[in-house]
């Protein structure tokens, strides 16, 4: 328990880190119109109030933000892979990464291109810039800021390929055990901070053109993987993956947060100083040193910030959770929004210290609002974050009351619906096996049975939704496929949702239009007890109110026969009472009702007859009293010298069996049988008496039926 809680808390911290890295990206891009000395065309706008401070700040965030993101992505990548397995992992990544990449690009690219054209036209004083040529690199493609999704997909492929090879070479996990220990030790001793940057430093050193400011060059121009980015972000991802493997690594990162941040700040200070002296890397010692220190800064920030989050942000916070959820959408959508604001304010005669915060506030306002209204409650939110949140949640009442019995005074007619000798198979599974059930006029038949017993299949046959393999189905004296018969039925199914934009009054009016002689809409609403919320959108109703609305839709046609599939699930006490009252009124009207339920108390409250289905057969049917006596059976077990034959003939004994050392007796009169047992065998031991519940009654009946 403690373990799970701790690991949950760690995930909160890492979620926060990931959200931070993404939102930092928005702040980074928002600063790019203020870069001093940038020629027109590199960014959408060149602001008339450039800022050296923003240039340095942007440089600092750019050192680590993407490495931090890939590190956390590696951690979550392995977590997901462990949880889902290979197949579902790829399906999940396809939805969360590949679809946003493709769909996002299709939508965002024209928007970005448009804002850029407008912005550069403005910078050039009104002349439209020539269409930019595709960069002359192999595989050229303008990935825009969505490059990180593409890079992430490539990284998944590479890391899983390596994982496959390692798993093949190291079946006993010996090597991997050693790696796990090394990972934790390297974090504790902080050798990781100093060595993990070496590969990316080597890749950066080999670049012939390298502006120090750009750090790891952004691979947004080509579909062919770029070496510095693949090495840098690949290392971050792989180490995140290993940290998830290794048991104590995360705790070690949490402990070393301060030291790592201190190193990061020192290294960054030196980088800034060196960059100010010469912005372009010249071959030589400085370049080598710069690349090395850059690597240290990257990992100092990654470990320092992750550690600080683990140390201070491990508890759950609704606000942080919301921001972390929003951050993915915000990062995906931010670029045209941010650039549009940059273009808009670019020529205003104001200082950058006013304009930059303005751009940030306005962009975040637009992006958070769009998230709240168009993403979080919709399919986009589900696609990006795995779930959608309804804008307003209603708790559904589910309290139950004891049942009150109903006098069965209107069982008076022939059958209105019959299944005769019905067999229905789905593939190899026999859902119904030569079953016979009938519903008489004006009665309520409760169909009881465990999950998968065949109840819903029986109802689907009566509704004409499926056809039987053999046997005869009749509804209101004819074929249920015949629409003339179906005009006499009403139905409330399980797992059906009505359109959320319509209101109960409208849903009832729509369903009423299908029938020849429906109740007035107002009467239906009153009967179902939903007048109070009849004009509220269905999507805003509570779970119980939705069921009540479905019930209203079922009865609106003044049905001759009504099928109710588990109608009271999720209803509160009053709603259930109201529904029962309405059912009784319909019965008194001469309506026949088939009701499936798990709850015997519901059958007791309403039913004239009960049929118990198990494994596709009717294993018992009869009046409620018959069923009550079945369920009133009790189970006695004891160790005794009495034999099965001795006990079998006693009054109140239904069944006796003997296993290993114990005598098992099913009885209707437990007290009488126990008294007699004790009297007949003074040495009797280990006496137990148990109430047979409904489930046991089913099980018992099933065994009897077999």
């Amino acid at each position: 328990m403690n373990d799970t809680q701790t690991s949950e808390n760690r995930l909160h911290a890492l979620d926060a880190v990931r959200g931070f890295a993404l939102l930092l990206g928005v702040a980074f891009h928002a600063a790019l119109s203020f870069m001093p000395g940038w020629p027109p065309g590199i960014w959408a706008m060149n602001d008339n109030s450039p800022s050296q401070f923003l240039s340095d700040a942007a440089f600092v965030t750019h050192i680590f933000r993407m490495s931090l993101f890939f590190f956390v992505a590696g951690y979550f990548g392995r977590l997901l892979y462990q949880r889902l397995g290979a197949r579902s992992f790829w399906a999940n990544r396809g939805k969360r990464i590949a679809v946003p990449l493709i769909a996002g690009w299709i939508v965002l690219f024209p928007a970005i291109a448009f804002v850029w054209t407008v912005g550069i036209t403005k910078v050039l004083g009104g002349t439209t810039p020539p269409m930019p040529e595709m960069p002359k690199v192999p595989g050229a493609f303008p990935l825009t800021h969505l490059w990180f999704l593409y890079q992430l997909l490539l990284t998944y492929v590479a890391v899983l390929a390596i994982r496959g090879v390692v798993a093949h070479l190291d079946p006993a996990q010996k090597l991997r055990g050693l790696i796990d220990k090394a990972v934790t030790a390297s974090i504790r001793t902080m050798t990781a901070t100093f060595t993990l940057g070496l590969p990316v430093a080597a890749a950066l050193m080999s670049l012939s053109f390298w502006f120090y400011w750009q750090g790891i060059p952004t691979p947004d121009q080509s579909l062919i993987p770029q070496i510095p980015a693949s090495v840098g972000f690949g290392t971050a991802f792989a180490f995140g993956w290993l940290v998830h493997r290794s048991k104590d690594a995360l705790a070690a990162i949490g402990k070393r947060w301060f030291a790592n941040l201190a190193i990061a700040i020192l290294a960054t200070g030196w980088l800034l100083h060196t960059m100010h002296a010469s912005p372009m890397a010249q071959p030589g010692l400085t370049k080598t040193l710069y690349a090395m220190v850059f690597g240290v800064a990257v990992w100092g920030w990654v470990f320092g910030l992750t550690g600080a989050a683990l140390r201070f942000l491990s508890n759950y916070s609704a606000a942080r959770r919301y921001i972390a959820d929003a951050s993915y959408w915000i990062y995906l959508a931010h670029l045209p929004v941010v650039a549009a604001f940059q273009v808009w304010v670019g020529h205003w005669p104001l200082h950058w210290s006013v304009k930059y915060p303005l751009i940030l506030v306005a962009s975040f306002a637009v992006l958070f609002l769009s998230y709240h209204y168009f993403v979080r409650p919709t399919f986009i939110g589900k696609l990006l974050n795995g779930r959608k949140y309804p804008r307003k949640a209603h708790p559904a009442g589910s309290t139950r009351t004891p049942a009150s019995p109903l006098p069965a005074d209107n069982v008076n007619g022939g059958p209105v619906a019959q299944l005769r000798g019905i067999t229905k198979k789905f593939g190899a599974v026999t859902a119904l096996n030569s079953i016979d059930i009938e519903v008489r006029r004006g009665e309520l038949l409760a169909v009881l049975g465990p999950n998968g017993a065949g109840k819903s299949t029986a109802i689907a046959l009566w509704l004409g939704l499926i056809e039987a393999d053999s046997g005869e189905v009749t509804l209101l004296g004819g074929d249920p496929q015949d629409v003339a018969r179906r005009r006499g039925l009403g139905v409330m199914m399980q797992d059906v949702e009505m359109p959320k934009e319509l209101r109960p009054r409208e849903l009832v009016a729509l369903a009423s239009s299908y029938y020849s002689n429906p109740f007035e809409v107002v009467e239906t609403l009153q009967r179902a007890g939903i007048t109070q919320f009849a004009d509220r959108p269905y999507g805003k109703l509570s779970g119980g109110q939705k069921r009540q609305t479905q019930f209203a839709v079922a009865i609106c046609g003044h049905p001759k026969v009504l099928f109710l599939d588990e109608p009271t699930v999720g209803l509160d006490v009053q709603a259930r009472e109201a529904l029962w009252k309405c059912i009784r009124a319909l019965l008194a009207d001469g309506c026949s009702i088939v009701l499936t339920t798990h709850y015997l108390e519901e059958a007791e409250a309403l039913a004239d007859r009960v049929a118990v289905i198990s494994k596709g057969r009717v294993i018992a049917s009869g009046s409620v009293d018959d069923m009550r006596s079945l369920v009133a059976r009790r189970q006695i077990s004891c160790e005794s010298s009495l034999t099965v034959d001795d006990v079998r003939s006693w009054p109140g004994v239904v069944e006796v069996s003997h296993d290993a050392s114990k005598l098992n007796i099913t009885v209707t009169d437990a007290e009488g049988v126990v008294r007699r047992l004790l009297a007949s065998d003074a040495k009797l031991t280990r006496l137990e008496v148990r109430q047979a519940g409904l489930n046991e009654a089913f099980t018992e009946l099933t065994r009897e039926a077999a």
Partner: protein
Amino acid sequence: MNSMTLTSPDYTLAAPTSRRIFAAYLTETRYEFMRQVRNPGVAIPVLLLPVALYALFAVAIFGGEITKDANLGIFFFAAFGIMAVTMPALFGLGTTLAMERDMGLLRLKRAQPAPAGAWLVAKIACGIGLGIISYTPIVIAALASGKLALDAAHLAAMSGAMLCGTIPFCAMGLMVGTLASGSAAPGYANLIYLPGCYLSGLFFPLPKSMHWQVPIWPQFHLDQFAMYAAGATKFQFEPVLIAVVSLVGYTVLFSAVAIWRLAKKG
């Protein structure tokens, strides 16, 4: 208590009058329409986007060029008009149908005595209705800004052609709605719709090297049909008969896939 003692009595109910059936179709259509209009996810992009884009491109950005070359005005009008009439058809039908399948609503309707096909007629009527609502502001914008040099007869013919052209997109929506799940349908609809808009040359002329692939896209044939109706010879690249046959062909193809899938999965 009463004389009913037959073992299997016949309860056949009187068929509703044709007035009631007509009323049922009408009610279904009305509520379908209300659903879509109330859904901001459908209503806002579908109804406002085309006219906003038309105003931006045809009036604000290229207004000057259109005054010089009237053909350009027809080109833009056709592009955004087609966008206006086809988007509600595709997204309205596709998304709602996929969601209704997820929700079990189609199963419920099959069990209820709903007139067969009422939901389909309602959805198609709605797709066309919303298309008209989305298209009208573009006509008003075009006429008010004077960026469309067409006489009344040609404008009427072009509008008629475009509205007929919604039918294949209704069928496309139906196909997407039956193939995809509710949460995936908008994504798939976009994936087949947006590339079609760009690659059919609807919004901007394509380089010669890409001409071979334009007949793949229904948008191209609809554009051709509309251009023929408008009498804009400059933009006619295929005989009108081929455009019409292609549109009918797509309708049949998409509907066939949808029907096959509905019959198989429900």
